[in-house]
């Protein structure tokens, strides 16, 4: 029998199927407007028959939508477990998804020592880069590539996404090179994330997971701000689903959700 971890995020649904700690199957689908349908589609598109999966552990902000789940773990626990299982030397996990950013410090056993989550604000998450890319009328890969070519040093105020967008308009009007603006965007979100990392106290090594880890421009800004190298695993967006599956194998999950979440 297999174990599955499912991470239901704001933008995507991720599933990882494991056996004895090894990944045997995986799937990522866009969450779209209907989370239930997306989740079902994800299960159906696995190579592994659902009947062969003995235990399903859910995580992510939409974990309550997962009707098939046998257990639940928090995003913090899933990210930590997934990270340390991927690389046992990891002590700080930075998880930046579409709508939430997190910094987690863990010990050698993967136990959470402290964590910080960005408060009600989009300036510390993927949604911010998307909004800024739209303002510059480029797609995300272009934004990342542009940012890596920047030679200037333009500062943006990272406090608020709404303000940031208006600042960007000012920069456009003052003919700031697009490359420098792209870098300023990544620096701004990185400032926000690094603030959280400092709050939990950075310990090496640092792993970046979540969808935003696919953005090279952001990774460069983050490494620069943290003054250390940042490890980005293969498939960074799957790490939490993987962690949930491992916690399932270990029996470390809750069988019911928090009251308010139902």
């Amino acid at each position: 029998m297999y174990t599955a971890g499912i991470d239901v995020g704001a933008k995507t649904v991720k599933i990882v199927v494991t056996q004895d700690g090894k990944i045997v199957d995986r799937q990522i689908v866009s969450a779209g407007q209907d989370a239930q349908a997306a989740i079902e589609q994800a299960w159906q598109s696995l190579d592994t028959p659902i009947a062969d999966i003995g235990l399903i552990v859910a995580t992510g902000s939409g974990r309550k939508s997962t009707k098939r789940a046998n257990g639940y773990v928090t995003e913090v626990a899933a990210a930590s477990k997934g990270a340390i299982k991927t690389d046992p030397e990891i002590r700080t996990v930075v998880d930046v998804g579409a709508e939430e950013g997190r910094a987690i410090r863990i010990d050698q056993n993967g136990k959470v020592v402290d964590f910080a989550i960005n408060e009600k604000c989009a300036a510390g998450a993927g949604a911010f880069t998307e909004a800024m890319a739209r303002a510059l009328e480029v797609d995300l890969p272009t934004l990342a590539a542009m940012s890596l070519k920047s030679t200037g040093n333009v500062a943006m105020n990272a406090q608020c996404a709404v303000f940031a967008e208006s600042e960007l308009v000012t920069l456009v009007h003052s003919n700031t090179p697009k490359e420098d603006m792209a870098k300023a965007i990544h620096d701004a979100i990185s400032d926000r994330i690094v603030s959280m990392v400092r709050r939990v106290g950075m310990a090496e090594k640092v792993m970046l997971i979540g969808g935003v880890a696919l953005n090279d421009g952001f990774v460069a800004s983050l490494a620069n701000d943290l003054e250390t190298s940042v490890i980005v695993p293969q498939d960074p967006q799957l790490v939490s689903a993987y962690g949930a599956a491992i916690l399932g194998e270990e029996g470390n999950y809750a069988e019911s959700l928090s009251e308010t979440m139902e």
Partner: protein
Amino acid sequence: MIEMFEEWYKSRHEYAKEWKDKTGGKVMGFFCTYVPEEILLAANVLPVRILGSHEPQNVTEPHIFGMYCPFCRDCLAQGLLGRYDYLDGMMIAQSCLHIRQAFTSWKKHMPPEFTYYLPMPHQVQSPRSIPFLRSELETFKTAVEQWVGKEITDADLDRGIELMNASRQAMRDLYDTRKTANPPMTGLEAMYAAVSNQWIDKAEHTAVVRDVIQKELPGRNLGLEGKTRLMILGSEDDDTAFVNMVEGCGSVIVTDDHCTGSRYFWNQVEPEEDRLLAIAKRYITRPACPTKDWPQRTRLDHVRMLAKQWDVAGAIIIQQKFCDPHELDIPEQRKSLDGIGVPTLFLELDVTVPVGQFKIRVEAFLEMLAEDDLF
């Protein structure tokens, strides 16, 4: 000559370090303009006001809760980033909670050899505050004496008082030149002069202010006649980019009510035999910070007086985001200025200013004031 102020504004750290090398004296960083600099000058200490650098940073998050103002965050960042590593001492006079947070965090994590918290009374409208502050000044003087290893005599205090008073008078005279229909200096230049005065050696700064007034300003024509005359008021404000933008829209800023501006130098110490009592009275009766302006709102009359004497057409009320004391004054302040026909524009400052966004509002405000003129 007048460019000296801008140079000083931009080279504050280099200046203080050179001053130390040159004099061998101690430098005291201070957080609030209720700090009695007379006593520091009496001990030959250079007081330098700690201000921010208006750059985004990521070092203060572990220390200051998100709803505290960007100014206290920016100040603390300077400490944590080691920009003021030459300070021998650091102190605060009790005013608002936010700047106090910057002081205590800095003290905890990067303490210089001497730190001091002066419990400046809040109830400055009660006569009880004067003997209390006098006694606190006595305790403070003793602490400074122990720190510098030298007694502070009456003659020393007199020297401190004279230096501060001379500087205050010079700054008042400089601001008075801006009352004319064609101000000989811009608001930006005035801001450089006023803010740099908070860390430059007082005698040196006063000498330049006097020179500027006597030799440079007479006959200086910047073509400011006919521009819309504005005042700025509110929280701490040393944002030159902002002032530059406002004046670039066809206005001239002719006066202010900021602790970084006229509030700092407005009134003099009236000398009397008991020097500490004289100093105490000066700080109790100075134009109040909103934290101390109760139960009566004395700021309203003071600001109206400034608006009238400097003949302003409008006022920009700027506050640091989350600055509760100012937020508690602003609705009444706006009504008060409206009452004498001075419209107001309200803006919130962050570490960096979204100049483009603010420019639209400032332009609209100036257009509105121009329409007022037609009727």
